[in-house]
């Protein structure tokens, strides 16, 4: 049988399994049930869901390619484990407030904590705008993965359309609960399949000698273990910047923060703080193995500029078809888990932040209104898919080159408002608006105009400006007393009273 056809059948089998799992775990038909799985997830499902949400299909193909170009400093820059710190610091507190007040999205918290509809709408709009390029590039990764793995037997466009249909169906029917169960399945694939493939290639290509493989890589790429690396990237300041942009601040990304509302109890967050770092580092191990093996085999023959096809090339030329299928499943695992989280997040932004606030004003019954808003959210998932297909197939440069590079550090610009809003009683709406806006402006300037001033990553500049301006405005403005009581004293010190505020 044609190998391309076999790969296509395997993709369809994966799709059937995904549909089965997600539909079995389908959510209750209320806003909280559909978008937050009725706040019922324990630590294991939470860790799998958050980790797989952060670790995207682009990271799966991109990390070995990054190792191939920049050496093993890539490992230092991952900083995956840092989210373990954030689960309780941000996660627990926002979960507690969110459960109390019925929040669904990040903007819900920010809108109410900063007593400003305008700021809430700004956050919703920014998140919605940047979800689109980030999500579309997952579709591009899948399209490339399938077409390269089948040597063009399955076209890029067909792969993208197939992926869009799959995501659309299971997010529509499964909701957050279906996605959560699916994330466990995907995490197991992500943990096992890259390692199994790496072991097979070393066994067959290097006679089972890992030392031989590593020495070959080092001979072909002598700077592989140098700091700051061949491109001068791995200076301490930039390692910190990559840790921040790649992981620490991703806890507030639009597809991750709502997941924190899904936890079952406070113990979930304690358990996540231990399980999170361990899960991250083991997930990254197989991927880094592929990077080093790829370096040993292809360094010097594959140009750095084409290193994004390293993983599919490595497996299709050095392992039997079954391993191509396994790695394709791993790609699907990483790409679907990020895309479905983004799709659900976009739907909740439309349903909760837009329709629920500004639509159906004549409907007085809250149950009926909730149901109507949920239907709009679910339909918006289906409407999002043609947009993703269009962007993935046409790949307009302004989205691929600009919006994507802006999206990840762009999401991070609400990090100061979230953490200060949770821990600083003097956080005011003026401070939040000033910090976020100046942070975004600084990010645009340091990313596109004065690129990387002093060789320092734009996220350091933008978050620095964001935090400092937030603090400066915060000390000269005053929050309402009611907000301090409702968001701080109630959870930290219920017996205390605040004095010294005029409002």
């Amino acid at each position, binding site marked *: 049988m044609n190998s391309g056809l076999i790969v296509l059948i395997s993709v369809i089998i994966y799709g059937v399994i995904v549909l089965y799992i997600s539909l079995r775990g389908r959510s209750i038909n209320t806003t909280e049930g559909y978008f937050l799985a009725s706040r019922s997830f324990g630590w294991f499902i939470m860790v799998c869901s958050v980790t797989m949400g952060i670790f995207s299909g682009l990271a799966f193909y991109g990390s070995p390619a990054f190792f191939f170009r920049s050496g093993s400093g890539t490992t230092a820059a991952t900083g995956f484990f840092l989210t373990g710190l954030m689960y309780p610091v941000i996660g627990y507190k926002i979960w507690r407030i969110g459960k*109390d007040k019925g929040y669904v999205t990040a903007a819900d918290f920010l809108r109410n904590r900063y007593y400003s509809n305008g700021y809430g709408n700004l956050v919703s709009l920014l998140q919605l705008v940047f979800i689109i390029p980030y999500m579309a590039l997952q579709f591009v990764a899948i399209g490339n993965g399938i077409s390269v793995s089948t040597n063009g037997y399955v076209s890029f466009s067909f792969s993208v359309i197939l992926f869009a249909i799959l995501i659309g169906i299971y997010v529509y029917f499964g909701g957050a609960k279906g996605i959560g169960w699916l994330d466990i399945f995907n995490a197991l694939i992500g943990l096992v399949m890259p390692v199994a493939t790496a072991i097979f290639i070393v066994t067959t290509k290097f006679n089972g000698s890992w030392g031989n493989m590593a020495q070959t890589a080092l001979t072909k790429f002598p700077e592989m273990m140098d700091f700051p690396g061949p491109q001068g990237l791995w200076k301490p300041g930039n390692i910190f910047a990559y840790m921040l942009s790649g992981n620490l601040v991703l806890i507030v990304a639009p597809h991750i923060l709502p997941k924190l509302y899904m936890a079952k109890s406070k113990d979930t967050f304690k358990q996540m703080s231990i399980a999170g770092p361990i899960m991250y580092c083991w997930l990254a191990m197989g991927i880094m193995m592929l990077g080093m093996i790829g370096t040993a085999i292809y360094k010097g023959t594959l140009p750095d500029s084409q290193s994004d096809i390293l993983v599919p090339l490595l497996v299709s030329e050095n392992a039997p078809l079954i391993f191509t299928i396994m790695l394709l499943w791993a790609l699907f695992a990483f790409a679907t888990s990020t895309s479905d989280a983004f799709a659900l997040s976009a739907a909740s932004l439309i349903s909760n932040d837009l329709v629920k606030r500004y639509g159906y004003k004549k409907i007085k019954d809250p149950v009926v209104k909730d149901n109507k808003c949920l239907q709009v959210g679910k339909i918006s998932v289906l409407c999002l898919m043609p947009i993703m297909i269009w962007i993935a197939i046409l790949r307009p440069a302004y989205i691929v080159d600009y919006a994507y590079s802006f999206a990840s550090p762009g999401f991070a610009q609400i990090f100061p408002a979230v953490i200060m809003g949770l821990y600083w009683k003097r956080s005011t709406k003026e401070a939040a608006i000033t910090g976020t806006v100046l942070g975004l402006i600084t990010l645009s300037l340091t990313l596109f105009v004065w690129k990387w001033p002093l060789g320092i990553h734009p996220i350091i500049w933008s978050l620095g400006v964001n935090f400092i301006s937030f603090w400066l405005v915060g000390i000269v403005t005053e929050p309402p007393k009611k907000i301090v009581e409702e968001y701080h004293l109630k959870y930290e010190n219920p017996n205390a009273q605040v004095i010294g505020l005029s409002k």
Partner: protein
Amino acid sequence: MEKNVIDMKKPRERFFGWFPHEKVTKIFVLGNLAYFFFCCFVWPNLPPRLIWGWWTTYQWVTNFVICNWAAAMWGIYYYKFWPLLNDDIENDEFLQEEVKINE
């Protein structure tokens, strides 16, 4: 726990109210900052060796030192010390009461 009256005009509250009041939390925050900087500086200064013949020092240290130390450090703090996660209020009952009141 903080004092029962919080004066928002006091310099400590006005300028540095975001910094924790509890001694153990202060140590934790400073410890984490030190740990971040240690991590950023330790990687470039590790000897560039292949452990067990193939595992780069950086990956080995990540998997067996940095991540595990972080998990242990945070686990102990959150389980034993952080007041928010170890307060006397039984969380779920507390929240259910709050939800009832709001309804």
